[in-house]
């Protein structure tokens, strides 16, 4: 009476082909077109370098870019970790205490409407040019999607589960640990994946406004001296970093909730 896998191996293969090769081919097409136009019109490097030039710059400046990427990565991970910790505390309290949920929910949503670029300079004034103000920006950017997805995951737990556990005289804490927390994990990870990408953006914005290290700093410096190829190289590094964090979260998700992938259609 076991349900058979719905997707056969060959079907899976062809789906992977479609999922990976079609977008890849599309990207290659765009890059080739870009390179072609830049060469055909002999557009100067300080205006718009071609992809080949950008890759060359990236390779030439690799040690420097890696060093800046490291700073940005550390800010991201630190901010990310703090945001997750806060989210869990806040979501747990808001889920357990109805009054707190009513009081805090509008505040959390409203906090999201504050433009980060307008508050980030304040953090620089208050906390200097070190990593702390960037980490705070990352926390602010990541907290919202993580907390909201965790909260909605907790709220979406089928009330019948809760009644069943209540009828078996489970304590609130046990019900939270055994039912609510695991059942809300898929939603939590969905939010986590989104904020993984956001976190890099937050760190870069923080660095733009003043820093000694990081991809944002590197980008601003290159921009001021019209080294557009370096700007693009930094953009590429930011993209790769975001994608890497996204993949990292997906990997952790697989390890933490392996059951969620079972019986997927």
């Amino acid at each position: 009476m076991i349900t058979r896998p719905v997707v056969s191996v060959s079907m899976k293969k062809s789906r992977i082909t479609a999922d990976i090769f079609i977008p890849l081919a599309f990207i290659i097409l765009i890059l080739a077109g870009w390179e072609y136009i830049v060469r055909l019109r002999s557009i100067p490097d300080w205006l718009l370098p071609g992809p080949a030039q950008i890759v060359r710059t990236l390779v030439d400046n690799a040690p420097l870019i890696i060093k800046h990427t490291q700073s940005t990565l550390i800010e991201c991970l630190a901010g990310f970790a703090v945001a997750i910790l806060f989210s869990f505390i806040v979501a747990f309290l808001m889920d357990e205490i109805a009054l707190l949920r009513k009081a805090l929910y509008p505040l959390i949503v409203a906090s999201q409407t504050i433009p980060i670029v307008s508050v980030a300079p304040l953090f620089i004034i208050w906390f200097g040019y070190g990593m702390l103000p960037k980490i705070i920006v990352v926390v602010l950017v990541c907290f919202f999607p993580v907390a909201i997805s965790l909260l909605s995951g907790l709220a979406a737990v089928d009330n019948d589960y809760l009644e069943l556990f209540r009828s078996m005289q489970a304590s609130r804490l046990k019900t939270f640990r055994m039912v609510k927390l695991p059942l809300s994990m898929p939603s939590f990870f969905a939010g986590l994946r989104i904020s993984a990408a956001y976190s890099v953006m937050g760190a870069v914005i923080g660095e733009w406004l003043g820093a000694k290290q990081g991809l944002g700093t590197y980008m601003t410096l290159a921009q001021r001296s019209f080294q557009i190829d370096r700007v693009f190289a930094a953009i590429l590094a930011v993209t790769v970093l975001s994608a890497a964090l996204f993949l990292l979260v997906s990997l952790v998700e697989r390890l933490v909730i392996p059951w969620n992938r079972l019986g997927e259609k």
Partner: protein
Amino acid sequence: MPEIVVEGISKTLGGLLTLGKINIKAGAGDFVGILGPSGCGKSTLFNIISGLLRPDRGRVLIDGRDVTGRTGRVSYMRQKDLLLPSLNIVENVSIPLVLKGMPKKQACAEAAAHFKQFGLAGFEKYYPRQLSGGMRQRAAMLRTYLFSSDILLLDEPFAALDAITKRKMQAWLIDVFNMINPTVMYITHDVDEALYLCDRIYVLSDCPTDVRLEIRVPFCRPPHGRTIAHSEYGAIRDKVMEALEI
């Protein structure tokens, strides 16, 4: 085996008198059916018996002890299996034992000891999403059994299954019943299912709900499985249908 007495229960839900004045009794080892239109308050009745909900009036007695509004004596099984997708079947089924304070390992071993009896042998380490609906309901029933082994409250346990699986599960339930001999209350809106399984049937009316008919079924759970061939089948079925006004 315990006796369950539901005495003069009434309950208003959302401003509407849902349960009028319900008197129902299940003697020790009885298999009692509760049949009624959907929305008439059958699940509400189980919520009251299991102590999740306090009735406005009336009492619930189990073996003479007043358990009205108190959880912990019985839990009940629903149409939804409510297995946790994050745990495998053994872990799921052993939850009531763990909640009662048994160490997890011992609880799993204890639960696993019943797997053969409940037709689940070999599926210990599977996750709920890997099993069919029928298997999941067996696991849900074992979990209910491990919470209170002498009373089974079953709320349309097979309603979501297809006709063939449903019939197989009914035959399986009869086997389980004969093995463990609990007192059973079985909610359904399927007349033929009630006539097949239950010694006695209470037919409930629409809201405000009361007991329209209480009828004994002389031919239930026959060893050959064919109730419909019994000489009294038509007459009893007609009476039930009449009480349901269909």
